């Protein structure tokens, strides 16, 4: 076994880890579609899907079989290239973001120095999925949805980045592992509470989750930008949304809730528990809130969240300078 040098082993392990994270993220996204329906059922005084398998556990398989065998229809009036490209971007950009998230001290894909910036870049690319999807569908509802999505994502990304700068300033690094390690025993949610709030809001908006789901508002746009999509192309948008939810939850945990840190339990369990909590929060928000009007969402972003993040950043900067004025 002369070829199995430590270097090769490391590469294989890294590849396996990357594969595990990738599959884990997609699978979690898929499982979440069912978990969400069950939880919504619980909160809405009804059962939710409970017919396939014990407690509806096999519902996911039934759904996947169904969606795989649906006719993959591209409308004749659609712009084919962009139409096909859009769901791929939706899925890929979010999945790629996972590589910067350290799940445990040993389980991670890439230890990038610019981890946080990488995520912001990917989130920026994600808006093209919606834009392309809406534009290429040749449908007016899709177009309005895409228009809303672009405006909303752009405005919310402005302060999403700013909301995280407090964390970066305290840690002095964009590297996610450094950020997690800096939180040992002292989670950033305490000094960066406003940063956390605004990031959570921006995260919901960027993933188009209720109550910021104006781009696909069913009651208004009848599904918005992905109205013309069917079969697995729709599936990719659909799972993409849940992958986005997992991503934002994982990021919140990493940046504000100490990542894998926690007593007694192994790191991966802590990470999973914390992420699970925020996933539940996403679903609970959907179950409980009505949808604000689109222009109010925009003005809320610009007039409330943006100033709040700026003030937060100023204060954080001032405090850091006071405490460690070197």
């Amino acid at each position, binding site marked *: 076994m002369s070829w199995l040098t430590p270097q090769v082993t490391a590469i294989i392990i890294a590849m396996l880890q990357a594969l595990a994270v990738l599959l884990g993220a997609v699978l979690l996204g898929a499982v979440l579609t069912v978990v969400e329906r069950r939880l919504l059922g619980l909160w809405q005084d009804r059962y939710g899907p409970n017919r396939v398998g014990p407690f509806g556990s096999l519902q996911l398989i039934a759904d996947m079989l169904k969606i795989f065998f649906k006719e993959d229809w591209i409308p004749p009036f659609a712009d084919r290239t962009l139409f096909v490209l859009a769901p791929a971007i939706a899925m890929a950009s979010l999945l790629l973001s996972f590589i910067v998230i350290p799940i445990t001290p040993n389980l991670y894909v890439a230890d990038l120095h610019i981890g946080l910036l990488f995520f912001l870049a990917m989130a920026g690319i994600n808006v093209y999925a919606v834009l392309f999807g809406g534009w290429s569908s040749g449908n007016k509802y899709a177009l309005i949805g895409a228009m809303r999505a672009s405006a909303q994502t752009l405005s919310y990304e402005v302060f999403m980045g700013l909301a995280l700068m407090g964390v970066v300033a305290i840690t002095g690094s964009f590297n996610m592992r450094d950020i997690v390690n800096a939180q040992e025993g002292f989670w950033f949610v305490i000094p960066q509470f406003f940063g956390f709030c605004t990031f959570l809001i921006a995260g919901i908006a960027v993933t188009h989750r209720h109550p910021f789901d104006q781009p696909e508002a069913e009651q208004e746009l009848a599904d918005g930008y992905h109205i013309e999509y069917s079969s697995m192309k729709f599936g990719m948008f659909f799972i993409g949304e849940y992958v986005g939810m997992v991503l934002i939850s994982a990021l919140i945990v990493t940046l504000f809730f100490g990542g894998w840190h926690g007593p007694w339990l192994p790191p991966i369990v802590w990470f999973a528990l914390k992420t699970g909590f925020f996933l539940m929060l996403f679903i609970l928000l959907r179950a409980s809130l*009505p949808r*604000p009007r689109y222009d109010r969402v925009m003005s809320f972003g610009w007039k409330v969240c943006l100033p709040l993040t700026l003030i937060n950043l100023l204060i954080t900067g001032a405090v850091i300078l006071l405490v460690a004025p070197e």
Partner: protein
Amino acid sequence: MSVATPPPDTPTTRHDAVVEALKRRFGEQGVREQATLTGWPVLWVAREALTEVLGFLRDKSQAFEMLYDLSAIDERLRSHRRDLPDADFTVFYHLMSLSRNRDVILKVALGETDLSLPSVASIYPNANWYEREVWDMFGITFEGHPHLTRILMPPTWNGHPLRKDHHARATEFDPYTLTVVGQDKEQQALKFDPEHWGMRRKHDDSEFMFLNLGPNHPSAHGAFRIVLQLDGEEIIDCVPDIGYHHRGAEKMAERQSWHSFIPYTDRIDYTGGVMNNLPYVLAVEKLAGIQVTERAATIRVMLAEMFRITSHLLFLGTYLQDLGAMTPVFFTFTDRQKGYEVIEAITGFRMHPAWYRIGGVAHDLPRGWEKLVQGFLDWMPKRLREYERAMMENAIVRERTRHVAAHTTTEALAWGITGPNLRATGFDFDLRKQRPYSGYENFDFEIPVGSNGDAFDRGQLRIDEMRQSLRIIQQCVDHMPAGDYKADHPLTTPPPRERMLQHIETLITHFLQVSWGPVLKPNESLQMIEATKGINGYYLTSDGNTMSYRTRIRTPSFPHLQHIPALMRGGFVPDLIAHLGSIDFVMADVDR
């Protein structure tokens, strides 16, 4: 308790005031009175004087603020027309003065060769759709109408369905075929043409988007289409397009016996159940001269209020869902189910029991009904409070609905808005108080009113109305009169079965009424009630037959939809959705 009597106060003196004023102004020849059972003066006026008469009545001194109804009658086959002016077609205008609580019905006689009238859309804006409907159904033209096109029938339809020479049954036509060419033609006819409606496609350098919302859209509440002219998300103008749910209920009434038409009424406002039977059977009972027993009247009130609650619960759930809250609808449907369990135990059916009968109700209340109803009455109040706390006090709900699609009382009256949507503007007019029927005068309840006339008030008001309905039902439970559930009258249909088995006379009547149907004396009668969505009225014309000669069904949702463009210009798409949710309409109630 009298059901068949016309509205309160002394009608003769009050009616005379209007009639005399008209006679003073237009001369004895100008207005000709017709004796009917409608309870209001029915006056024939000349076509030439119509606009002037309507203008005079609209005027402050007479204060007929609302054109309640406008439709026509094909008189050509009517045999009992003694003392009436010669007419092949009659167009009638039902005016309401809500401030003085009095009505007047004007009729205009038209000859077959000259079916044309001046349009009154400039006097009463809501005449627009009614005149289109009359043109669609009878082929009577209205000069000066802004857009006289078909409204309920497809644009490609041949003939005018409510004319007596138009077939009623599909089997009387040639078999229906649809070729590819024919399908293309039909689809082409549905395509929206902005120029046709006097809309511009461009403004300066920006192009407007024309968005076709419906007839299949999650928030259209049925097969309703509304074409929006959009600048970004701002609605510049919109054109509602109705008729996709038209089933020809008025035509069907002309070939169903008085008795067998009852199930059709259930399906007019399909969330209203027996509430729809009420105006119909009350109008028939006026024609037949039946006084129902106190017990029957009270049972009717109780069931009607049960259906008001189930209808309002459906409204509340969908209204909040249209605002993006996905959960409340499941809770309101749970409550609604509890209501239906009571309704089912009493009537045997859920949504469309067709349970009222000419002269009473189908059967007596089942044993143990009090306990069932009481269970529902005890369940509801805390739930209503919960909806208020979770939703109506929610900041997002308030932001989405406050000052959205708000209108004033004056505007509401001009557009024919009735029911909760009118009361949301702060105008206290409820037929159960103002013109009690079926014994509502014996109940102790309040009429909730709003203040801003916006989408929020329309929602909150219905929660308050449910509380009042619960109060009424509680009084029904506490004071249900003893007695028979059917009137002792030869025209009660079907006659009491117990006696039918003993008496040969009753047996014969039973046989005739079930096989042919009861024969009602020639006359005209009218009953308006405060239905779930506003004022619902049946205007029946009998020609001394087993079937109605003309049944006019005036529904509240029709004018409510007509009002949308006037309200929504300058609003945003989400505001339109909020408004659609707050109107509380069902398309069956619009298209009939």
